[in-house]
Structures are given as C-alpha cells and as structure tokens.
C-alpha cells in the first residue's frame, strides 16, 4: 500500500521494541469473537490510475451544469469562482491543517477566520459573526435553538417562504428536542401576514429573503412586531450574492442572520460541502453556537488571533453547551473569504448587478412564451414560473432536450398542490445563448 511507509522489516523491529510477538497481541483486549477471522469481501488495493479510471467513469454518468444551459437554484447557485481561490485553498498549510487549537502555529487559519467573521458581519449588516457552520439549513436550526435559549421560550414560527428543506431541518430537530413549531402555508407570492401570527409565546420568527420563491421581503415591520412581543427575528439568506444588491437583514432589524455561503467561492458539489453563515448582535455572542476567532496578543505583545469564548462549547460545558457542534467549515469559509476579498465591494456589487440583469433578461423573454406566467413582483436572480401541465414533467422533457430548466416546486413541497410552479434561477454564468435555448426548448415543448 503506497500510503503506508512501514516495511515488513520495520514492523518486526517495532514489534520487538514493544515486546509483542505479533500485531494480534496488540489487539488482545478485544474479545476474540469480535475480531475478524478472514479478510472482508472487499476488492484489493488499486493503483492511482485505477482509482482515477473508476471515479471518472462515475463522474461521466452525470450531466455537469457547465455542459448545458442551466437554470437550477433553490438554495444552491452556480457562480464563477476565480482560479486563484481553489489554488489557494489547496495549499497544504490550509488544506491539511487541523482546527487551530494551537494559536502559535495556526495564525494563518485564525487570521482568515477573523477576516471571514468581519466580512460576514458587514455583508449581513450585523455586529458579529462566527467562524462558520455546516451549512445554511443547520445554521437555521441552530438559530432557532439560540432564540429559545435567549427568550426562554420554545416555539418558533416559520414563514411559508422559507426553503422547505430548511423548514424540515428545523421541524426535525424541534420535534426531537420537544420544542414547538408553527408553520405558515407555502407562500409563492410573498404575501403572507406573519405579523398577525406573532404573540408572546414565540421565541422567534424565521423568514427568508429572497424567499424560496424568489420574492424579496421587507423585514422592517416584522422585526418591530417581533420585538414588541419579545421574540427574535431570524432572517435566512440562501443566496449570499444577493446581499451585494439588496438591503441586508441587519439593516431591517433582524436579530440573527443565518445564510448559505456556497454562492461565494464554493462549487455546487451536489449539495455539500457548503458553508453556513451565522451573524448576530454583540449582546448575544455568548449564546451563539459554533467557533469564534478573536484578537489577542502574544508574549511579545504582537497582534495574534486565537479561538475564544470556548466556555460556550461542548468540550467545556458538556451537557450545558450552547450546541453539540464541534466543527466549522473552515476550508469553505476560506474559499468564501478569498472570493469576497477578490471581489471587494465594487466587484460584489457588479456581480450582483450581473446576476439580477441576467435574471431579468430571462424573465422578460419567458413572459413572452404563451401559457407561462411569472408570479414575482420582485426578485434578485431567481423567480417562480407558473407553467401549464405540471413542472416536474416539463423539467424532464427539457432535460431530455439538454436544458436543465429549474426546480419543480413539487420536488421541494410534494403534495402541496403547487405542481404547476417552477423555480428558475439565472446567474452571471448564463449567456444570451443559454436564455435563447431555454425559451426555444420551452416553446417547442409546451
């Protein structure tokens, strides 16, 4: 095995030094009944060339987004990632390092996490952010748990515009943690009245903008209503690029902003790994889950960074911990941070403008197709189409024609009676040729 440096002679010398007759002697504590008597029925080791052949064969059975006109979004977005981002995150010192528990030799990681935290806070319009979460959906569930801790209440209200997977994650953990969830019906028009549902039993209201149907939401009056009733407003952002163009939740009174950072610096990856964003107010920092990098000094007085406030964490507080999380998405956070650093404010604004412009151009064209209707009054880079004859079947037919047209709402909300709705996303990656191909295929199919 080429990954294992010990030779048989080494092994014998080492066993002699230990004073063990053979390797089995080292497993003497294991009850004999638990040790395998024969090798498992698994293939033998393979050369690098064979590994590559096998995995390339599997990869070739998929249709990559870059090969077709591609309009799929709903919580994961295809953007251009500069080559330098992937190059930098593959540097050994980033890729193959561990959690920065030893700050003296982990300043690289700690320094970029401190920058990441600042970038996320600025982008969301909040005061502080953590060093990232698993992804946007789990960050949302953690935000609800944090709101419970802060308000000492255990009932959350979920907007009908929240990504159905995110809502399911919150419902799953709430059910199993014996907390309560109040659900609003799916809200394709972004017109639900959340304010009317707020009372003094709620810990938080969870609302997404742009919502899963693409509608932009003004959260100002909702935030006021939450605060009047002692509840927190949790705002969810699944398309981080949108924050380059629209008013951030922090400026509209949100108390916790969680988001999916995949859009910036990270590939689609069939759903993971992604990077969860988590930002809040200074006052709530000690109830925030996840890791935090903070500034300090070393013994020579030089500025240094270190993981901090770990008294909230599981390895100190154990069953009193703020959460059971002991991981962040360090490398994905680095990709996010590098990409955002390359963009800067000017680049992000232009990228956001390009996304919106391409989506509007597509919407303008789709509205000319007979039988197709766009539901949204406002959107950023994704909107909802009403199509005749069922969206799921339409998507399959268009896929057969080589166009990946979007996400049928029925895939996210089976049984909700929204079978004629299709979510369509367009980013800076889409060309006018892509748009023309989509419209032509649609006209041909309908």
């Amino acid at each position, binding site marked *: *095995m080429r990954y294992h440096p010990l030779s048989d002679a080494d092994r014998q010398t080492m066993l002699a030094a*230990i004073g063990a007759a053979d390797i089995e002697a080292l497993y003497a*504590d294991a*009850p004999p009944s638990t040790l395998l008597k024969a090798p*498992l029925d*698994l293939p033998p080791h393979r050369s690098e060339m064979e*590994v590559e052949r096998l*995995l*390339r064969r599997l*990869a070739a059975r*998929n*249709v*990559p*987004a870059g*090969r077709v006109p591609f309009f*799929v979004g709903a*919580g994961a977005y295809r953007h251009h990632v500069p080559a330098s981002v992937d190059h*930098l995150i593959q540097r050994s*010192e*980033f*890729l*193959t390092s561990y*959690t920065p528990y*030893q700050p*003296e*030799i*982990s300043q690289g990681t700690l320094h970029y996490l*401190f*920058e990441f935290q600042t970038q996320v806070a600025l*982008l969301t319009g909040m*005061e502080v952010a953590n060093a*990232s979460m698993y992804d946007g959906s*789990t960050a949302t569930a953690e935000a609800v*748990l944090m709101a419970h801790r802060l308000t000492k209440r255990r009932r959350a209200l979920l907007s009908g515009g929240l990504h159905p*997977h995110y809502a399911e994650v919150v419902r799953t953990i709430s059910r199993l943690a014996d907390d309560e969830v109040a659900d609003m019906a799916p809200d394709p028009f972004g017109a639900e009245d959340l304010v009317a549902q707020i009372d003094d039993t709620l810990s938080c209201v969870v609302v997404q903008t742009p919502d899963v149907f693409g509608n932009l939401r003004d959260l100002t009056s909702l935030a006021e209503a939450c605060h009047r009733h002692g509840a927190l407003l949790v705002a969810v952002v699944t398309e981080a690029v949108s924050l380059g163009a629209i008013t951030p939740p922090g*400026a509209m009174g949100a108390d916790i902003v969680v988001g999916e950072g995949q859009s910036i610096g990270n*590939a*689609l990856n*069939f*759903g993971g790994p992604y990077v969860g964003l988590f930002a809040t107010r200074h006052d709530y920092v000690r109830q925030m889950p996840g890791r935090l990098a*903070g500034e300090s*000094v*070393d*013994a020579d007085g030089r500025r*240094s960074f270190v993981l901090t406030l770990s008294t909230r964490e*599981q390895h100190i507080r*154990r069953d009193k*911990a703020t959460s059971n999380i*002991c*991981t962040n*998405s360090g*490398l*994905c956070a680095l990709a996010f941070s590098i990409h955002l650093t*390359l963009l800067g404010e000017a680049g992000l604004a*232009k990228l956001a403008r*390009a996304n*919106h412009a391409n989506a509007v*151009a597509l919407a303008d064209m789709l509205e000319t197709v007979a039988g197709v209707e766009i539901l949204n*009054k*406002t959107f950023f880079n994704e909107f909802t189409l009403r199509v005749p004859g069922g969206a799921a079947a339409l998507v399959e037919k268009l896929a057969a024609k080589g166009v990946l047209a979007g996400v049928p709402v029925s895939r996210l909300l089976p049984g909700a009676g929204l079978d004629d709705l299709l979510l369509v996303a367009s980013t800076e990656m889409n060309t006018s040729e892509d748009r023309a191909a989509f419209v032509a295929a649609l006209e041909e199919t309908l």
Partner: protein
Amino acid sequence: MLDRPAHLPMEEPRATFTGNRGLDQEEALIFESGRCDVSGVDVEEPPPVASRLGSHARKDPIGLPGLTEPEAMRHYVRLSRRNYSIDAGLYPLGSCTMKHNPRINEKMARLEGFADIHPLQPVSTVQGALELMETLADWLLTLTNMQAIALSPKAGAHGELCGMMAIKSAIAAKGEGETRKVVLIPQSAHGTNPATAALLGFSVRIVPAAADGTVRVAAVREALGADVAAIMLTNPNTCGLFERDIVEIAEAVHEAGAYFYCDGANFNAIAGVARPGDFGVDAMHINLHKTFSTPHGGGGPGAGPVVLSKRLAAFAPVPFIRRAGDRLTLVEDATGTQSFGRLAAFHGQMGMFVRALAYLVAHGGDGVAEASKDAVLAANYVRAGLRDVMTQPFGDRPCMHEVLFDDAWLKDTGVTTLDFAKAMIDEGYHPMTMYFPLVVHGAMLIEPTESESKASLDLFIATLRDLARSAREGDRARFDQAPYLAPRRRVDETLAARKPVLRWSPGE
C-alpha cells in the same frame, strides 16, 4: 524578560524596519490593506435591464475591501506560512487523526461530473453521483456489518445527533418516549456526546470507568434501568483502549430495552479488523475525515455518515437512495415512512464522499486493515519508546491507535502539560492532544497514525525523550512561555475571552 533556553541562541533576533523576520512576513488585515473600490475580479458588464428589485435595492455601502489578484495571492500565501499542517510534519493529535491526505482524492472531487452538479437537478442526470453514494454506502456497511446508512450528517457531532435521533424515534415508536429519558455516558466520553444527548432532551447519567480506564459491564448494569434510552460509548475509547467488556455491555443494554450508540471517532483503529455490528452496536457515526482521510481543512468540512442496526434502519433520515434495476432514485420525502425526517438541506457532503471512496478504493479491503494495524503498531511503538520517561495512567499495556500519558512524571518539575506541548512547537512538532480525556490529570494523548515512517517515529520519540530530560533536569527556560521559534510566542487566551474582539472595526 525570561531567560532563554540554553540550547537556543542567546541574542534576540535583530529588530527590522518592516517587522518581518526574513521569510516570516507580517501581514495586515484585508481591512487595513484593501480598498472598497479595488477588485481582483473582472465581472462582465451586465445587459441593460429595468430593475425588478423594487424598493429593496441596497442603499448603504457595505465596507468590504478588495485586493487585486496579486495582492490577494500574497496575502493568503503569507498567511498559509503561519500554519502547521500534516503535509509539513508529524501531527500527533490524539482523537483527531491527522493522517496523509492523498492528492488524487482532491483531483477526483474536482471532476466537473462531481463538483459541478446541482443537488436538485433531475435524478436522471446524476446517476453517477448516486452510484458513487451507493458504492460508498456498500463499503461502509461491509466494514461495519450494519444494516442501513444515513449519508447526510455533515460532521461527526452531526452524526451523533442523527444516531441519537434514530434512537429517540425508535423509542417513541415503541411507546416508551415518556419513560426512557436517560442516556448513559462514560466519564471519558467526547464532550459532544453529553451535549448531543442534552440537546435531544435526555438527561445524562455518568458511568464511571474502572481503574484500568475502561467501562466494566458491572458499572453499566448498575446504571441501567427502565428509564434508560441508550448508552453512548466510544470504542476504542478515548483513553486509547479497546473496551474489553464491549460484547457484554451491548447485551446488558439490549436486555434492558435500551440502544447502543457507539461514537465512531476511533474506528480507524479497527477498520478491517473488527466490525461494530459484531459487538452489538445499534448506531455509529463514521468520521470520514478521520478514518478515510478527507482533509481537515483547518477545522472542516467534515462528514459523519451513520450506520444503523436492523432495529433502527427504518428510522433513518431522508434522503436515501433506492435502486430499481439499473436506475437509482432518491427518496427525499419522509411522508409515509418511519424516517425521523431531514437533517440538512440536500444529500450530504458529496465532495467528501468522493474523497473517501477514492481512499477506500486505493486501499482496498487489505489496505484498510493494514492502515488500522499500522496505526496501532505506531502508537504502541511510541508507548514503548517513552514508557520509561513518561507515565501512563492505566499502566503499561497495549493501546489502540493512540497512546495516553499523564503528567505524574512532571510532578515537582514546575513544567505543565501545556508547557511541554508548547515546547514541542520549538522542535517543529504540532503538540499532542492535551487535557483530554478529562478523567486523566494533565493528559497527553498521542496519535501518530499509520502515515509515519519508522525513522519519523524514532526522531519523534528521541525529541520527546530529550524534552522529558530537560524537564526533569530543571531547564525551566525551555518551557516557560514557549514557543520561542514559532510565528507567535504564547498567545494570551485569557485576554481574548475577557475582552472579546471578534471582528475588525473601522477606526481601530
């Protein structure tokens, strides 16, 4: 000013104008060096359209600085040089497993057929991805002899949550949700275990360990009762020992109507050698990043698939893959099943699945077993090399893939475990895991892994012996406020916690 250790040059480094020390270059924050009107990316000019943002358009500036591409390159390369990594040297972190990260795995994960596919594109266009997940699942089920698998957990602790959710659901399905509210957890457990149990509304009952560092079946029997939902046990345990009573413990737990959750963090000691299904495990997470070498990436992403016994299989979270002849489908909706629901958006850490499968295929069944055995051999070799100068809390006996020392041997030297660890940095090593497990005073948990050559282990042992000699001989200067030779001297962690500065602010 402290005395410098005798083996280091006596003079302080010459002060420089820049603050740099040769190749060790200081680096500003991007907020200090960048400008908001600078961009390192040329974004194409968008087509002119009428905005549909309505009144939501952003009015206020964000304050995000930009760097040009060459500036960004330098910034991050300079930062990278302040990090230790497994590619740079031995990383003996017990319980964390820092082994070689083969680069073929990275190359494969970046194939457009894996990296550039969307989780919600039609399943007919991602058959290869589903086949990859199915293949990985087969490998993991074979290695563990378990019935079902949940691939979606995004990290080890998320896997724990998943396994315990399956257990809680199974208990509820039997109508025992109101009575079984206690989870048994050994004193030496990972901190995530009690946190996970508490998150799900269980109370924690601690099971003491015997003097030999393992949990005895008698102690488990003592703690068991009709109120117990499960035990969360790590095997091999966090003291680096195989739980000798594991089979009897599983039987006792099952007889009491409870479930056996095994923390799989240390699966890399036994993969290919023993199967958790054979010792009665009901649920176990597998840290793909530890056992199957997906890189740790400075703290993540991880991946924590959970294998489940027949008793728990029906409660697995969505999504799962179903095969109908040649065609694979994805069950994403829990309606009408006993599944406990959804743990995360989409299908799990696909990028990690690719890396783990590449690792497994490269190793084969033979290589996986060899890796486990070599890891155990290396840990015992370190034990043999240090047993006469450092003390072991549970006596000199074979360990699994990690070897545990305590600080009894440092008594009266004035050197602490922390000092000793920091002095290792001056010798070019990442410190071992310190002060864990909590049940051992001044714990030092060393995990060399199968990736180290004999020469590398010999040098490591010789270095630790030399440090031990220094400590014993009273060379305090080598340890007090160490490290001396790292990019930073000892960092003030108390100050950071007392006056938290968690972001850059304008005007700082």
